[in-house]
């Protein structure tokens, strides 16, 4: 029994860290721009396809490919913010529908360029570690470590740089931040680019583990939604807590039953939580 529990916890933490990175980008963009980005999953997909091109086809090394994937996602993110999302700030419904349209467009572009087939790349890391009773696949551990590094970098940025502090200020009160000389438009651009980069890096790290296809962004987006609602929309610590909880819950139910039941279980837990706390575990009360 104890080895099983240990394994469940290890698996839960491993996938939890990946969920956090995905959810963090989503919640960051929402927290600052008050916009829901349904195309967030497509930035994950773009990250994975960039790895497919540079690592799978052009045979660059994996780490370089991941960095390039972040760069591509950041550039795409900055472009769509500048061209589309900025026009829809303050228009909740219109903005959401626009992001749905964008999601369709990005999917279909990937479909035209790469075709509908599910692809895969070689695993850059293989083998397992055995720690105490639990077994850890090294490639999953790499994803978790990559996620941890990104989380630490993100935290440092938000907490200790002027831009990071300005972002927090805009999230709290855009008008007051404006009076203090924070230009919200440039903060929007930076936040959106970083949020997109986070989705891109999640996709890039996951590329060797799952298959790559134009529609691959669907499930990560769903998980990001669940994590973010649980933790509280727009809350960065909430995304971290939510990601860990969902990772552990899914790991337990997926080990004991199967992955569909695990997804249903995490949804039910989210429903129970928002009955008690409508704005999520760490969300601002409305």
């Amino acid at each position, binding site marked *: 029994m104890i080895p099983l529990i240990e394994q469940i916890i290890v698996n839960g933490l491993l996938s939890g860290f990946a969920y956090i990175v995905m959810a963090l980008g989503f919640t960051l963009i929402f927290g600052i721009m008050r916009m*829901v980005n349904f195309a967030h999953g497509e930035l994950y997909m773009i990250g994975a396809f960039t790895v497919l091109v540079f690592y799978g086809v052009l045979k660059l090394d994996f780490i370089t490919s991941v960095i390039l994937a972040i760069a591509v996602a950041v550039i795409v993110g900055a472009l769509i913010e500048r061209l589309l999302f900025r*026009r829809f700030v303050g228009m909740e419904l219109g903005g959401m529908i626009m992001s*749905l349209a964008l999601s369709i467009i990005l999917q*279909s572009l990937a479909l035209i360029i790469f075709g509908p087939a599910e692809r895969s790349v070689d695993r850059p890391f293989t083998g397992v570690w055995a720690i105490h009773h639990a077994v850890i696949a090294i490639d999953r551990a790499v994803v978790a470590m990559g996620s941890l590094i990104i989380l630490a970098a993100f935290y440092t940025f938000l907490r200790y740089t002027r831009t990071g502090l300005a972002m927090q200020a805009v999230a709290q009160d855009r008008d007051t931040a404006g009076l203090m000389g924070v230009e919200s438009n440039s903060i929007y651009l930076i936040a959106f680019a970083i949020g997109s980069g986070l989705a891109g890096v999640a996709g890039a790290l996951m590329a060797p583990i799952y298959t790559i296809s134009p529609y691959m962004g669907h499930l990560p987006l769903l998980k990001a*939604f669940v994590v973010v609602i649980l933790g509280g929309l727009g809350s960065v610590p909430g995304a971290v807590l939510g990601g860990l909880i969902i990772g552990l819950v899914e790991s337990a139910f997926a080990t004991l039953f199967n992955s569909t039941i695990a997804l*249903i279980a995490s949804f039910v837990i989210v429903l129970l939580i*928002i009955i008690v706390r409508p704005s999520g575990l760490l969300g601002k009360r409305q």
Partner: protein
Amino acid sequence: MIKHFAIGIVTLAVILSPWVTGGKYELHIATMVAIMGMLALSMNLMLRIGQLSMAHGAFMGLGAYTTALLCMKLNMPPVLAIVIAGLMVGLIAIVLGTIFLRIKGIYFVLLTYAFGEIINLIFQEWVSLFGGNNGLYGVPKLSAFGYRLTDPGTYYLLTVVFVAATYLLIRKIFRSNIGAILDSLEQDEPLSQSLGVNPLSWRIGVFAVSAMLASVAGSLYAFKIGFLSPQAFSFSLSVDLVVMNVVGGALSPIGPLLGALIIVPLPELLRSVKDYQLLCYGVVLLVFLVFFRDGLMGLIKKTQKAAI
């Protein structure tokens, strides 16, 4: 007067055209336009109160599967099955609505999205009941009062009756006091609250009615196609319904019908450029959102004003 007469003639001509040309294929497309029109109208009801539901694909699917299974496994009369499925889906919407609609804003979209995806996963994974990705075969034809509805032309007219009834219902709602209350919820909730309106129960009510309409459309779809597979009820169906509203214009109930009339036959027309179909779709949606926010109906009204 002459204008109304002309609109009536055109509408009648559009409705009757597939029946007159009589091709099986045209009738099939026309029936799908009517069913999708009904769904687009149910989505319109949600958009009018400022809520985007991503669960409507799932509601349609629940209606379709429930109706089919009640007929197939319990030998229930189809009409009774449609009613029971509709009531069940309405009840589900009430339960979900009490949780989902408690907080304003985008939580509703995210939660309906998650709900829709999970229902679709259940359709896929619970193979013994729903047939999984291979689908559920052998849904019987619709029959009522000892008469089996097998002729595609008659079935098409039946769906037209349903979509017309839905249209009249929604028009009636929005021209009545209820419509004023609903509009006030979207525009100024505190004000309507101060006038003694309970926003939550109204929202839940609209959600339930809208879900029931989607369920009935799902039942009609099940009897039409005779075969159900989870893909037909996925997230992208909910998106299609939104697209119909955006392209047609969500401000009047004619908009979504116009949207359905354009969007449903589109894949057939774009068959030669199959790879670019989805891209066209996304780009058209984006163009409408950025440049023609009130859809085709908005454009028509604008040109009318310019003419005067």
